[in-house]
């Protein structure tokens, strides 16, 4: 031990000293006021050269202007945006990426700082189902109304520039507002103030010029096509950037976070709509008595899946208590339209499904719902699926283009609708034990089975066709998707195709080739239930890949 015993109080003394937070502050803190500052110019005067002399006039707006030649890649703007706006732990509304290219011995590196481009035609604003975005008529700043947002995150999918950022903690999206409070007082935005190279400025731009530059793709290499949203930011350079400039993350492919509620919602709404649709088509050929026998169970279960889908979709919202706000974007937002269409579908479907149970009691004309109602339900459902397709088509991602998404969604409706109808037929036959049902099963079971095999095979071939992009020399966005599905997501891909082949082709084919003795088709009910589950699992996995494997155009990223 120590030569001389030391009183433990010395440790206590230093611990006490260490805990006194106030002393140093009282000793050192300068209570200087605005006028004296710390000897330096005020934030207003200091950056006057980086600020416009006059506010925007008619046909003009504020915009960021980036001098690429002055950006050396320190990324202070990212940290300053975070600190000066009091954002969450990892939240910043600015990012910095890297472009590289050039020839041997003459390489070129160019860092690219990017934030919201306050577009002339903002995709976020058009996409938003609750009108939580507005483009200020005087300044052109695209503002997000945080308390209006209900956290659907659709804007994060719609913006080509990854500008709106979702906060799971807050349940809403937030984004750059060009520090409008600061601008209003003549102060420079955080990023402008913080850039050591003075590479970021605020400028007044003419809308016509932005359109012209966007149409001629005068933006920045590696960025998404500017003509989609007409970004107002200008990237200036006195140099000529080589043609082969690519983002540093050009070859990196990473899965996107999947949206589970959307996966379930899409698959189940399509199941529900498909089931109603198959029922209507079957009604065209099958005897009315048969339809009357399967309808109560079939419509009810189709309805349950549909309602389940809508319930799950609400879980996707950061603030589900405001789900009702979704109706207000009907005039411009495909998401609003999707929600309204499926709401209508659900309402009609409830009426339709309840008809056999309630209608018999309160209405003359017996238990059968009028055929027009059935077609209306199916029609509303198809319209809903159409809106779903447009929701993704609107984001301008190759993997989500309207044609491919439409095929997928409708084929999902077909596969699951056919499987569901077949299962309903079988369960009804087993339940009622009536000869008519058994006969109907024998007559229409194989038809549904063959249709299922055809739809499932078509869909799987369609999906597998994506892998042709692996042969592409350049890393297109569809090649990225194919790389993801065959690489990082290969297990999911394998499971998806396995489930699809087993449930949609192998098991139905087995039923066809090894038919049980006449009248005993009902024995197959558990088997068909299993293949239905397999089909459903396959479609859910396909939808998982739909989200996880999508490659979005984006601003250049880092190494």
């Amino acid at each position, binding site marked *: 031990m120590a030569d*001389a015993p030391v009183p433990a109080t010395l440790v206590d003394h230093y611990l006490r000293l260490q805990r006194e937070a106030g002393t140093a502050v009282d000793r050192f*803190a*300068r209570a*200087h006021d605005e006028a004296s500052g710390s000897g*330096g110019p005020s934030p207003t005067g*200091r950056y006057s050269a980086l600020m416009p002399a006059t506010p925007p006039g008619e046909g003009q707006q504020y915009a960021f202007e980036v001098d690429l030649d002055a950006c050396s890649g320190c*990324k202070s703007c990212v940290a300053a945006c975070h*600190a000066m706006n009091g954002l969450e732990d990892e939240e910043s509304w600015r990012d910095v990426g890297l472009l590289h290219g050039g020839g041997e011995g003459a390489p070129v590196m160019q860092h690219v700082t990017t934030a919201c481009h306050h577009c002339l035609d903002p995709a976020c604003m058009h996409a938003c189902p609750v009108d939580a975005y507005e483009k200020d008529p005087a300044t052109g700043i695209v503002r997000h109304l945080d308390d209006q947002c209900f956290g659907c995150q659709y804007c994060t999918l719609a913006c080509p520039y990854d500008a709106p950022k979702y906060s799971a903690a807050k349940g809403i999206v937030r984004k750059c507002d060009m520090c409008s409070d600061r601008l209003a007082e003549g102060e420079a935005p955080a990023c402008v*103030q913080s850039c050591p190279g003075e590479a970021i400025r605020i400028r007044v731009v003419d809308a016509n010029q932005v359109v012209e530059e966007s149409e001629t793709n005068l933006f920045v290499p590696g960025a998404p096509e500017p003509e989609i949203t007409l970004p107002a930011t200008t990237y200036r350079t006195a140099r000529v950037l080589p043609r082969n400039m690519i983002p540093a993350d050009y070859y990196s492919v990473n899965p996107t976070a999947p949206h589970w509620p959307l996966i379930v919602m899409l698959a189940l709404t399509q199941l529900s709509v498909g089931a109603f649709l198959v029922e209507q088509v079957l009604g065209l050929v099958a005897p009315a008595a048969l339809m009357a026998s399967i309808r109560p169970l079939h419509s009810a279960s189709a309805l349950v899946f549909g309602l389940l889908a809508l319930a799950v979709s609400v879980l996707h919202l950061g603030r589900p208590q405001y789900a009702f706000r979704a109706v207000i974007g009907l005039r411009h937002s495909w998401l609003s339209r999707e929600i309204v269409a499926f709401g209508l579908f659900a309402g009609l479907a409830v009426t339709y499904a309840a008809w056999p149970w309630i209608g018999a009691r309160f209405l003359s004309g017996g238990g059968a719902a009028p055929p027009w109602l059935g077609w209306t339900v199916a029609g509303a459902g198809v319209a809903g699926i159409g809106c779903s397709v447009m929701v993704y088509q609107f984001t301008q991602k190759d993997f989500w283009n309207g044609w491919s998404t439409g095929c997928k969604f409708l084929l999902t409706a077909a596969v699951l609708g056919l499987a569901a109808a077949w299962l309903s037929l079988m369960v009804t036959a087993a339940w009622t034990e009536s000869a008519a049902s058994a006969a109907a099963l024998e007559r229409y079971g194989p038809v549904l089975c063959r249709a299922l095999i055809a739809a499932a095979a078509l869909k799987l071939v369609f999906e597998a066709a994506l892998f042709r992009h692996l042969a592409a020399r350049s890393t297109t966005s569809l090649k990225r998707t194919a790389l993801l599905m065959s690489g990082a997501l290969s297990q999911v891909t394998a499971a998806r195709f396995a489930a699809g082949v087993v449930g949609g082709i192998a098991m139905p084919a087995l039923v066809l080739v090894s038919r049980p003795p006449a009248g005993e088709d009902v024995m197959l009910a558990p088997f068909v239930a299993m293949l239905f589950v397999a089909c459903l699992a396959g479609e859910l996995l396909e939808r998982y890949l739909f989200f996880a494997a999508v490659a979005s155009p984006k601003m250049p990223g880092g190494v």
Partner: protein
Amino acid sequence: MLRQREGHLTRDLVRTPGGFGLGQVPARHKPDATADLVCGYCSTGCRLTVHLKDGAPVNLTPSPGYPVNRGTACPKGWEALTVLDAPDRATTPLLRPAGDAPQRPVSWDAALGTMVERFKAIQARHGAGSLAFLSTGQIPTEEMALLGALAKFGMGMLHGDGNTRQCMATSVVAYKQAFGFDAPPYTYRDFEESDVIVFVGANPCIAHPILWERVLRNRRNPKVIVLDPRFTETAMQAAQHLPLQPKSDQSLLYGVARILIERGWIDAGYVEAHTSGYEGYAAFVQQFTLDRAAADTGLEPREIERLAATIHAGERVSFWWTMGVNQSYQGVRTAQAVIDLALLTGNMGRPGTGANSITGQCNAMGSRLFSNTTNLLGGHDFGDAGDRAKVAGVLGIDPAVIPHEPSWAYHEIVKGILEERIKGLWVVATNTAHSWINQSQVRDILGRLDFLVVQDMYASTETARMADLVLPAAAWGEKDGTFINSERRIGTIRKVASAPGEALADFAIFKLVAEYWGCGEMFGEWESPEAVFHILKRLSAGQPCDITGIADYAMLDERGGIQWPYPAGGPPVAPGAERHLFEDGRFHHPDGRARFLFEDPRPLPEAPGERYPFLLLTGRGTAAQWHTQTRTAKSAVLRKLYPDDVYVEINPADARARGIRPHARVEVRSRRGRIKATAFVTRSVQPGQLFVPMHYEVTNRLTDAVFDPYSKQPSYKACAVDVGPV
């Protein structure tokens, strides 16, 4: 309900005038006071204004009025407060009971008692010199001085060194030999006043962004020249980039000197009046013909001639070097080859000139003068009886307790452990097990110690995890003191936050160790950091770094920091002044002359060959990363600014030849170890060279423990490796 424009979510982002000259601030974080601190990362020495609310820090912004950074900071500075709140802060002393048992929390009393008991037992068995310390450029000067004095004068240690050995030892020796004192001659304003700015082995855009800002403020339309094997961010901005072969700098600089001499492009008057050794130098560089320089460097002869012509044409030429020069097996002579050019052309002592070393850590300069390791406190000489008597007199101690020899250098201490001459080690605020060269070897060596004490703000560093005893330290922002930046500017840091748990300022820990050791009385006057500052002033009296004219911390704050020298009774200096040295051409050698120093370049210690055909360069990755990342990895914002996993830059030609696809996983192998990394295929590295950032834990498994013979600085940027797909 349907439409809501206001509410708590909107209010969360409202900005409001912050007062204190801050402009608008987040309303939630509107301060009721502010305090200014010099940043605790690099040697640029920016000042940050911490926003305080109810006595606690809530935010910070760079100080607008400070002459160094004028309202800007790099991402590390912006996030300086965030990293204080990490969950892996050391909050209590941790003791390993025995062997491989896990560390367990103990009281300070038990921790200090055990440390003293174990250290004294080691000294009793193996001699006083069997204890050593490894310190840092990250703590205030006052703490360094206390540690150095305590360890050597109080505890009888002979050997202690700092992680500064890894960053600026080369500059120290180069200056000392050339100028007679370790005196970086410049001020940052020289960046703004040069016509030609030559960067040698430096990438300020990434390593010192705020210094690059000073270059951008130059209104003389300067020509920026970059000597670097890599096509760095700075090289992109240069008027001329010379991508010379690694470690061929001397051949290039001597070759340029030969051209300058041959064409009469030298300042003969300056050479005659203020230097010595010119004849030998002029004769020596004759062998570096244009052909030889071109062959050694791999550059086109006309590029070398162009460099010479640009230097000649510039009225004010400044030369700046950083780690590309310092971290080399021949760094001292390379740095001196730079100094030689400045002397030869008379680019010294005038605005916009100088041979200028940009230092690494926030207080490397403090360490150079006051760590009591290589130099006796205050830039004195352990071997000089007069210096020992002077220091003993100032400190009121017996001169006999002052060792007669400087400490062993870092690698000699490591070797001492291997040779069982060092048995106990005290590591303060550095992360040897990550940052030291040839990492697997040094981890093995640290494991052989009888007792390893690690004093750090995080209990999670690679070195702390190996420790027998962890002492929890307060961080920057949780204590007082001063830093000295690259341009010799002394600025204050102060306590604006309380430390977590039982963590204590390093100053308090040293004081406690002194008491427990039984030598507390020796440090009676060292009662607070500011009290120590007054001792340091007295120690500096009469030295080139004389700071006796600085009254106190308050004066440092009012003046916007003060550069040394600032002797009492010296000429008046305006607040915020920016001063360079040697205006009168008088250097610190007894004859007042600067020395031309030169030597034959030496071959690569581990040249690429058949099995290991690539040369590995290491260095800084991004401006958001600091050294071994113990701090910068704790900020979520900073983590967004660099790749999570280690990557290796490889030229497309090499990648093709090795079958390496962009972004594929590869293995990099050296004779010492192998690592897995992601391939970043880029022309920013030349064929035959690879670059791996130093911040990742695995990088130093590859590097080769080779050192400059004069500065003992490790040569991190030249070892042979191979690379291939995983």
